[in-house]
């Protein structure tokens, strides 16, 4: 419990800082719409490898904060048929067949280093960014769903219906495939910006999701991985996933 207020405090500080930043920004913008200046000028670089660490002990069955955070961020409607609606993150509860231990965890695109979806995509719409984020370029996706056949994690959703009222920051539309983007539109904007799922998880006092640069030994994700360890789902496939699980 002691960790939580600190995190909250930190967060509100950060929030205030950003808000002030925003105001300063707006001042600039009112002179000459130049807010875009602060955004990522440099391309995603292979010096970084973005990843997530999920601490399953902190993740509780029945909580779907991360899913809600994700859905809000990307304007994903969670009503409707579970099998045809988009699910970038899904919560799974597990029970060990031997020990009876119960675990709960979110599963999303695992951002594999050697991603099967990228290999199979006929047009190259499925691709891996230099910083390890696996994305669908929806401008070249033809909706063949071969990537969904290939994904071992069932992490991708095909859009089965016409969508309306999308968010400006999250364009989505019928007939293309999509999946977790690690919130690239957020993490590209400015440093230290977290994906929506991690933000929501922290907001609801679980802090089970750590986002960060796996290549940077000083990042909190690397340090946690060092001390706590972290395993991959289906490690036998040797895909070197960017999403790691602790306590699995």
């Amino acid at each position, binding site marked *: 419990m002691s960790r939580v207020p600190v995190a909250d405090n930190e967060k509100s500080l950060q929030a205030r800082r950003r808000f002030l930043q925003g105001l300063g*920004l707006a001042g600039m913008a009112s002179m000459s719409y130049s*807010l*875009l200046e602060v*955004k990522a000028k*440099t391309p995603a670089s292979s010096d970084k490898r973005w990843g997530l660490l999920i601490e399953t002990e902190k993740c509780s069955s029945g909580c779907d904060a991360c899913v809600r955070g994700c859905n809000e961020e990307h304007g994903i409607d969670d009503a409707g048929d579970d099998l045809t609606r988009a699910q970038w993150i899904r919560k799974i509860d597990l029970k060990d067949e031997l020990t009876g231990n119960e675990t709960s965890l979110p599963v999303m695109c695992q951002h594999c280093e050697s991603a099967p979806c990228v290999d199979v995509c006929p047009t190259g719409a499925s691709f891996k960014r*230099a910083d390890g984020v696996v994305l669908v370029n929806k*401008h070249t996706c033809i909706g063949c769903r071969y990537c969904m056949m290939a994904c071992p994690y069932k992490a991708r959703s095909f859009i089965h219906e016409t969508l309306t009222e999308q968010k*400006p920051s999250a*364009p989505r539309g019928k007939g293309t495939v999509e999946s977790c983007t690690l919130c690239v539109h957020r993490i590209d*904007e400015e440093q230290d910006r977290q994906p929506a799922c991690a933000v929501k998880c922290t907001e609801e006092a679980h802090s089970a999701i750590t986002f960060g640069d796996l290549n940077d030994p000083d990042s909190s994700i690397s340090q946690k991985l060092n001390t706590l360890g972290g395993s991959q789902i289906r490690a036998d496939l040797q895909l070197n996933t960017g999403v790691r699980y602790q306590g699995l």
Partner: protein
Amino acid sequence: MACGRPKLRVGPSQREGGFTDSVPATVSRMENQSMRITALIVCLPLCAFGAATAQGLLLQRAGSQAENRPVIPKASKGDQCVADTEIMRKDHMSLLNHQRDETVIEGIRSEPYSLVSCVNCHAQTDTSGQAIRIDAEGQFCESCHSYAAVKIDCFTCHAAKPAAMEVIGNAEPHLMRDNPHTLVSYLLNKEANE
């Protein structure tokens, strides 16, 4: 088709081991005739259809050119486009496409030709202050495109309205923080209103 056929109709071939491809002349002529009729039946409607569409298009063009050049709604914000207006008119598609690849593939978000920004500046509001889709009839993107007979699918995915202002008006700090676009457009809007 009809002139190519007699060539294809081959006689006995050495390789194919004694086939006789010969057909009595009467049969051949009869077939030629029915062939031609078939060809006519197939081709006539096609030609007619093609001609009709072409003519229709021409008429439409001519008519609209004479009477009404497209009425392009003025930008609702800012007094300058992200580039020279003349350049924007001519090259916005390639600018957008270029930016699109840079942003999506490389993650560069500092370039000015963001589709979100076009919508922020160019989308209109109706009399009750509600945003109108930028691709609706007579609106910025559509007015010009329907004149030029261009169809774009961008707004089946991309938001056609700026992010909702009401929420920002309630000043939920995390929302303002999370979306500089909306923050700025909100402030700009407020400024314009004052």
